[in-house]
């Protein structure tokens, strides 16, 4: 494309197929003791 550069695909919709296992790290176990941020957590199952 000439006018648009897409950085990623439909990552959210895609994750409905194989997400939801509940085994991921809970966000408060990382470094966000007061400013909770879920989006920077890792999913271990789907990256295998």
């Amino acid at each position, binding site marked *: 494309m000439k006018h648009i550069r897409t950085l990623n695909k*439909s990552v959210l919709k895609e994750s409905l197929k194989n997400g939801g296992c509940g*085994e991921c790290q809970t*966000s408060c176990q*990382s470094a*966000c003791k007061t400013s909770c941020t*879920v989006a920077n957590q890792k999913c271990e199952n789907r990256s295998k």
Partner: protein
Amino acid sequence: MIHKYKLSGYNIVLDVNSGSVHVVDDLAYDMLDFLDKNVKEMPDETLIDHLRQKYSLTEINETHCELYELYKNGELFSKDFYAPLAKNIGVSPIKAMCLNISHDCNLRCEYCFASKGDFGTGRELMSLDVAKKAIDFLIKHSSSRKNLEVDFFGGEPFMNFEVVKETVKYARSLQDKFDKNFRFTITTNGLLLTDDKIDFINKEMDNVVLSLDGRKEINDRLRLTTNGKGCYDIIVPNYQKLIKDRGEKDYYVRGTFTKYNLDFTNDVLHMNSLGFDQISIEPVVSEERLDYSIKEDDIDTVFKEYEKLALELIEQRKKGNNFNFFHFMLDLNQGPCAIKRLKGCGCGNEYISITPNGDIFPCHQFVGKSDWKMGNVNAGNFNNDIKDYFAKANIYSKEDCKDCWAKFYCSGGCNANNLQYAGNVLKSHKLACELEKKRLECAIMIKASRKKH
């Protein structure tokens, strides 16, 4: 829904429901003002009339064609698939526990949400008996979850080191029997770090959070020992030794910024200059009447500082210095699944906090709020009504969140802050929201910078 913004020379478009991010030129950016969730195959006359003043008809048709292709592929104005899913989210097994092993602290940090260490409930250390009962409680309520997390927190956990060690040993002894995998983390102010404690952390802790606010004069203004002195000169060498011995295991040097250091980029860079490459610094959460609190009037200053930090991160990476800033971490190609993003942090549903006397609260920030006590591990009682309440608290049950562009990234924010500052778990803490959205815009811009348009 889309969110578009300009930052540091980039025109960025986030398609909220798909998670796709597009970097576009000025024409595409302007054209999006004339499009909505029903993009037609051909541009309409109104759009052409407006844009012809700046762009050629060929360019307009070409750009519209590209935007239409994204729309057809579900990467622009994509539909919301998630609202019906949110309605079906139920209670989850409990898989994570904040173990307040010490309601005592050897620091008296001015801004401490734990009332300088004791959470307002009096200074107390957790006994091994309570800690073991907490581990038993976690296993019992974890159902089929394999990965269980325990965070040693306080207060200062190392004021109760023997119980920390024995608790880890006890949990490890139960792993095979119950087919569980315990992951431990610990948060420390660094004052008590001796060689044996550093060895213990580096062997047993999957993650360690090391508290430091940045430059010496900043850290020592609010992070004071019990005799009123700063702690920087004691803790920094301890952290440097710990990190040197830690290898590839996770850690974060984590600070708090306040009204006194709205130039916190300098603190992040200072921490990096000390040899730390995993860094987090968060805005203080406090009542507005306090001198150090961040107020609405400060938002523009903080926004500019986040932008400055983002640009600094990009510059440092060009030089090969790949330090990581926690709140700019963003995996656009995967990250958490949609279900996780709907549910948020898990507070009160899959995550709980235990006090030294065995009381159960929804999370470490709810400790001491008696209305939210969920039970006690000694008494063996547990209030499932509160658990049910938190299980239903998701980004579609929070009025301010369901139509917000950032909902899949903050996942509804911090329930405790919502309660404390907006008066209701299901309402948003506006200041925290604004800062979170700015951090997200910066994080996406950093991704866009990897390859120029």
